[in-house]
């Protein structure tokens, strides 16, 4: 596998995962709208903060309302992390690596890209947003399904997995942070009532609701939901699972020891929360530290496999 191709596959998977998770992230808030008591206003702007988009957002928009937040997160082509920008990047990376993935992948990504662009208004307006986001998530899963079902498990597969699970781990912390910050902004007497609603939305947005129920055998409480999404060993979107998958994929590649070491450190630092009172500013900082470690891991991956050092040939 060419180093350049490996890098593009890695990014292709990261952006595709970002598309899916941006849709999931928005859908958490979107669902909340319908279930929260009328007097509680959720701040859509939280989503900008947890996505590290404050500076860019403020250059573009004066009003921090729902519409602008959605425009920024979904449609804005000056925001490199927006859903449409991410899709474009999936397509661009795939355009140069089409020869190593199943042929249908190109068709599926074009289909998704066309849908996302043509129906972007549905994503921004409230009435059809749910359908829009669901279709996007479904489109991403179709692609992952195609890869799982028809791609050989060579180096390309490993790089796609490393990219996907790294991005998923990162977005997982951001989704947790999104819930955490809504709760921190609510008054104490509200937060207990709110907790149930919010955490069940978070679990649903991660397709984790049933799995949580079966595994935890408990009603939905913040501490348990967060713990599940961080440490469950079997759920494919949990932090622990994502990190294990990165390690597994790396182990099939040359010079993987250094990556395994870094991931092990991250795994050791992955833990749940004991009590719902611990979902606070400190928890938010903890999530932020994980994000920084993930960025460091990304740099290590780049150094290890994508920066080709011209070796002694023959």
């Amino acid at each position, binding site marked *: 596998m060419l180093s350049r191709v490996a890098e593009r596959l890695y990014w292709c998977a990261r952006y595709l995962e970002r598309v899916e998770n941006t849709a999931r992230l928005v859908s958490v808030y979107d669902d909340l709208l319908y279930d929260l008591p009328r007097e509680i206003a959720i701040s859509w702007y939280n989503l900008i903060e947890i996505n590290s988009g404050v500076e860019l957002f403020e250059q573009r928009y004066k009003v921090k309302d729902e519409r602008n937040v959605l425009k920024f997160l979904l449609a804005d082509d000056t925001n490199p992390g927006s859903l449409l920008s991410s899709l474009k990047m999936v397509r661009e990376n795939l355009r140069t690596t089409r020869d190593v993935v199943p*042929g249908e992948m190109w068709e599926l990504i074009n289909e998704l890209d066309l849908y996302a662009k043509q129906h972007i208004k549905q994503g921004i307006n409230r009435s059809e947003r749910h359908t829009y986001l669901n279709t996007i998530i479904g489109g991403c899963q179709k692609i992952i399904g195609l890869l799982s079902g028809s791609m050989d498990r060579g180096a390309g597969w490993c790089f796609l997995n490393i990219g996907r699970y790294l991005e998923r781990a990162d977005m997982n912390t951001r989704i947790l942070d999104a819930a955490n910050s809504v709760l921190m902004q609510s008054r104490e007497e509200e937060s207990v009532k709110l907790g149930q609603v919010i955490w069940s939305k978070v679990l649903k947005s991660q397709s984790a609701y049933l799995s949580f129920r079966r595994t935890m055998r408990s009603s939905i409480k913040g501490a348990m939901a967060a713990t599940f999404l961080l440490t469950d060993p079997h759920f494919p979107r949990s932090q622990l699972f994502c990190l294990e998958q990165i390690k597994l994929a790396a182990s099939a590649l040359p010079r993987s020891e250094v990556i395994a070491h870094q991931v092990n450190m991250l795994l050791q630092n992955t833990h749940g929360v004991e009590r719902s009172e611990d979902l606070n500013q400190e928890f938010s900082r903890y999530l932020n530290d994980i994000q920084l470690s993930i960025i460091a891991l990304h740099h290590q991956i780049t150094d290890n496999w994508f920066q080709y050092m011209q070796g002694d040939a023959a």
Partner: protein
Amino acid sequence: MNKLTKNYDPDAYYDELIDQSGNPRPPAQRLLKYLNSLSADELEKRRLTAEATVQEMGISFTVYTEEGNIDRTWPFDIIPRTIEAKEWAVTEAGLKQRLTALNRFIDDLYHDQNCIKDGIIPEYIITKSKNFRPECVGVSPAYGVWAHICGTDLVRDETGQFYVLEDNLRVPSGVSYMLENRAITKRVLPELFENDDIKPIADYPSQLFETLAALSPRKIERPEIVVLTPGIYNSAYFEHAFLAQQMGVELVEGSDLFIGNDDCVYTKTIYGPERVDVIYRRIDDLYLDPEVFEPDSVLGVPGLMRAWKAGNVALANAPGAGVADDKVVYAYVPDLIRYYLDEEPILPNVTTYLCERDDHREYVLQNLDKLVVKPANESGGYGMLVGPHSSKKDQQLFAELIQANPRNYIAQPTLKLSTAPTLVGKGTLEPRHLDLRPFILQSKDTYVTTGGLTRVAMKKGSLVVNSSQGGGSKDTWIVETKGV
């Protein structure tokens, strides 16, 4: 019945599907009968399906504009063009003959130059050729073949006779569109493939693979083959990726390769260097190796020519093969066939006037309004004068250009290119001019595509079929007609 083609008028041209009295030609009978059974609405539905399919399949080509590069979707007409299998067999033989002679010619030019010594072709072909590479003199590629992949443009005149319009021996494009056109047509008109005896075309990637594998300098079971692309901004990038994928080989850019101390070519992989045996390069000669050609170019690989000359890697097409891509050489191809093969050419050339020759130039200058003037070494339909459609001012300009550099210009009579029914509005068919580009592969064996890429001038009356100039394309069917 017969509603769709009822008012169809091919005028004085040879129409590929419908003869002068309005009857379908034998290979088109089933097709036209079927099309006539469709309502205008149904046909429109099929056209829209095709349009959506092209978009979803992401079939595109890149056009250079002042605003930057635009990825345009491939313009496609759903009505196929048909050719009878028996007729095609003759054309195929003609193409094989032509390419065998051309490769003998190129090999001769880089060795003894007997064709010049024997007076078959004038010496200025080499001394003034833009594509002759002195760096290649004395090199002996495998099987004596330099042009491994050739796209030869064919046209028909009003009698239906096929003529060779030009040979593209450098980095010809279009074969992926030929394959994709078939894929789209199968989705749009699936009913026809059940009953009609349409020859399949899908084996091209395997044939290309075999052609390339046979060139490997290392006689090993699995030679490493790569497709070398200049990158995503190239107008044919879609095709480069498509072919690499279909052949199951790596698509590389210049920066993915390097030359080792042993003068062998290696790819930069996550495991370390891996040796390359054959490069199907889609980069022009002059950008292949900055050590030998353009020093500023970053598209190629420093030292590649060294590796090639040392015989450590095969390049397809070989550098310097473009010398025969010259429109002046074209004029001599029939003579070259007689000289090298001692055979009469099967496929005729279009009458060609060489402005270098005094008598020809005189004729050209006096008849600019009737002729098509082409520069000897351009591609993509650039820098041409189409006499009957030109202004006095254009003609004056070309008269000056020709006098200043006669070697660089040839002229041909304006051809009455054949036409085929093309969907121009809802349920409306009109004749549009077209040509045909078959692809010829040659290394150990010779192979010709079944049919080729049909390009259509989408504008009424226009003779310009290049996609970079707004042309479109159609599926091409070689049809077995026995029993019809």
